[in-house]
């Protein structure tokens, strides 16, 4: 195991017995959260970073489970001396409610229905609901203010919602490969994914667990269409080209091209580990997310309450949430005169780029996160600027950039 791994980790369950009122008005009488933490919370709890997960999210963000060889989903960024440095920070990752990895969701027993699995009776949840739940988790962990809330894609939406809903509870917000709201095209892809699940004969109106089956074909299709949108054309070309498995056309409908084989394999893997109702819930949460909706579609008005510093990162080949979508957030923050930095990283991996250790991206994230400090929650980033001890104030340099 590499020296910059957090090593062997174990998840743990946090139970919350107070009812949770959801944005839909429905109430969860109680809920569990499966969480993982890395690093050590310091004495004044000022070094905590929350990691928000993307669509098929999981609490296992870094390190390894005993006896397993697959690292957590964001192991490239979280660990000792990595961009999210666990020598400095206490990192919290969780499985959101509605999920299927241990937190209360559609596969959990429904106390109002003889503890049968919730299935389709699990309420729709929104990004705002998740953030409210995460705030309760922060209370539980003794974290008043996050040093940072960080997320990619759907996780970036949660980070943005944090900045708006709990402005006094985070200092820094990193929104990576995300968007302030889905486009019609984005929603369309989600709808194809949902329909593939809903139309699977094994779906049984969402009560497949009670029938001791699951809509495997639907899940595979849903994942395949999703997966296509996560990769760039370039990345697919690079990885598969038009390579044939057998070397020849077979003139049939079995797998012939390598890319077909890959998509089927990914779909197959996913279908074994993911709950169909959770996939439906998560894609709906994506579709509904739109903080500007309550503000006459004016994003800057929606973001006005935020007081944290922002880092927005997009990737040139991300066509699911293209750089222009990230720039909508940047522009709204600039309009509001809020502290924001923005980089558009040239990377070939498409939307999935945020999971890769691309040097420019991870170095910028590291620089943005800086060092934990116990105070200074300011509106103005410049007031939080680190001491500039490394700069020789007396040097007789030229006018900035002169003579270069």
């Amino acid at each position, binding site marked *: 195991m590499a020296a910059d791994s957090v090593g062997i980790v174990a998840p743990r369950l946090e139970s919350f017995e107070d009812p949770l009122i959801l944005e839909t008005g429905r109430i969860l009488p109680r809920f569990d959260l499966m969480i993982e933490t890395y690093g050590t919370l310091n004495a004044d709890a000022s070094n905590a970073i929350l990691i928000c997960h993307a669509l098929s999210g999981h609490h296992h963000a870094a390190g390894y489970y005993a006896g397993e060889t697959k690292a957590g989903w964001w192991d490239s960024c979280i660990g000792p001396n990595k961009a999210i440095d666990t020598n400095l920070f206490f990192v919290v990752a969780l499985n959101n409610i509605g999920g299927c990895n241990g937190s209360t969701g559609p596969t959990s027993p429904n106390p109002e229905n003889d503890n049968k699995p919730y299935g389709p009776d699990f309420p729709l949840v929104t990004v705002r609901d998740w953030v409210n739940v995460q705030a309760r988790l922060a209370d539980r962990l003794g974290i008043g203010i996050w040093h940072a809330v960080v997320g990619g894609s759907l996780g970036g939406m949660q980070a943005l919602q944090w900045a708006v809903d709990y402005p006094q509870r985070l200092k820094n917000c990193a929104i990576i490969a995300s968007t302030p709201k889905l486009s019609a095209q984005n929603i369309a892809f989600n709808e194809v994914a949902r329909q593939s699940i809903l139309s699977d004969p094994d779906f049984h109106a969402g009560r497949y667990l009670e029938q001791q089956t699951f809509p495997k074909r639907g899940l595979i299709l849903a994942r395949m269409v999703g997966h296509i949108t996560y990769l760039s054309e370039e990345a697919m070309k690079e990885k598969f080209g038009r390579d044939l498995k057998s070397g020849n056309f077979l003139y049939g409908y079995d797998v012939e091209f390598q890319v077909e084989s890959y998509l089927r394999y990914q779909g197959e893997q996913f279908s074994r580990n993911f709950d169909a109702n959770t996939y439906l819930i998560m894609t709906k949460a994506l579709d509904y997310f739109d903080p500007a909706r309550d503000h006459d579609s004016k994003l800057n008005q929606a973001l006005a309450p935020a007081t944290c*510093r922002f*880092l927005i990162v997009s990737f040139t080949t991300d066509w699911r949430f293209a750089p222009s979508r990230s*720039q909508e957030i*940047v*522009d709204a923050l*600039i*309009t509001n*005169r809020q*502290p*924001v*930095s*923005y*980089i*558009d990283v040239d990377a070939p991996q498409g939307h999935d780029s945020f999971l890769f250790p691309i040097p*420019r991206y991870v*170095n*910028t994230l*590291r*620089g*943005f996160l*800086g060092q934990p400090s116990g105070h200074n929650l300011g509106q*103005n*980033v*410049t*007031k*939080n*600027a*680190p001491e*500039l001890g490394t*700069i020789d*104030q*007396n*040097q*007789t*340099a*030229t*006018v*900035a*950039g*002169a*003579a*270069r």
Partner: protein
Amino acid sequence: MRLDQQLAERWIKPGSRVLDLGCGDGELLAHMAKRLDIDCYGLEIDEDKITSAIGRGLNIIEQDLNDGLGRFADQSFDAVVMAQALQAVKAPDQILLDMVRVGREAIITFPNFAHWKTRSYLGFRGKMPVSEALPYMWYNTPNIHLCTFRDFEALCQANGIKIINRLAVDGDQQGNFFMKHFPNFFGEIAIYRVSRS
């Protein structure tokens, strides 16, 4: 202290909102942030410099100045600063107009192509001047729109831009009697503070 830092302290009021175009690694912004408590954004295109500047705790937006300043509202900054980039943009006249649109004042520095050394280089050798201030060959220079004090002032006049201050300095940031009175001949670097009339 660097001249640009001195000038910033003289020309930019504490608490101002400042936009730095081509901010590099953010050294000037960091200085101003510390000394003047300004509220600022820097625009830069060099990836490594952006990373360094963000690491300093500054607000840096990755942006090509050739795309203009459309994302910034009219008069939304107290000062817009651009050091040694005017000559490298595709449309210097447009960026200048954008600067005085976005900022109440603009501070601009550029190499003076009419400096006597440059003139004599071209005059005697008949070749495009290469110097410490202009260290590139004609074919690989990023400086595609070189100008002089006179050219710049003519541009300002044609566009109704008011010159508030003008400084002529050499490569070491020093000025003298000759540069002050004959900037177009003796000034190596031009420094202007301008605004919309």
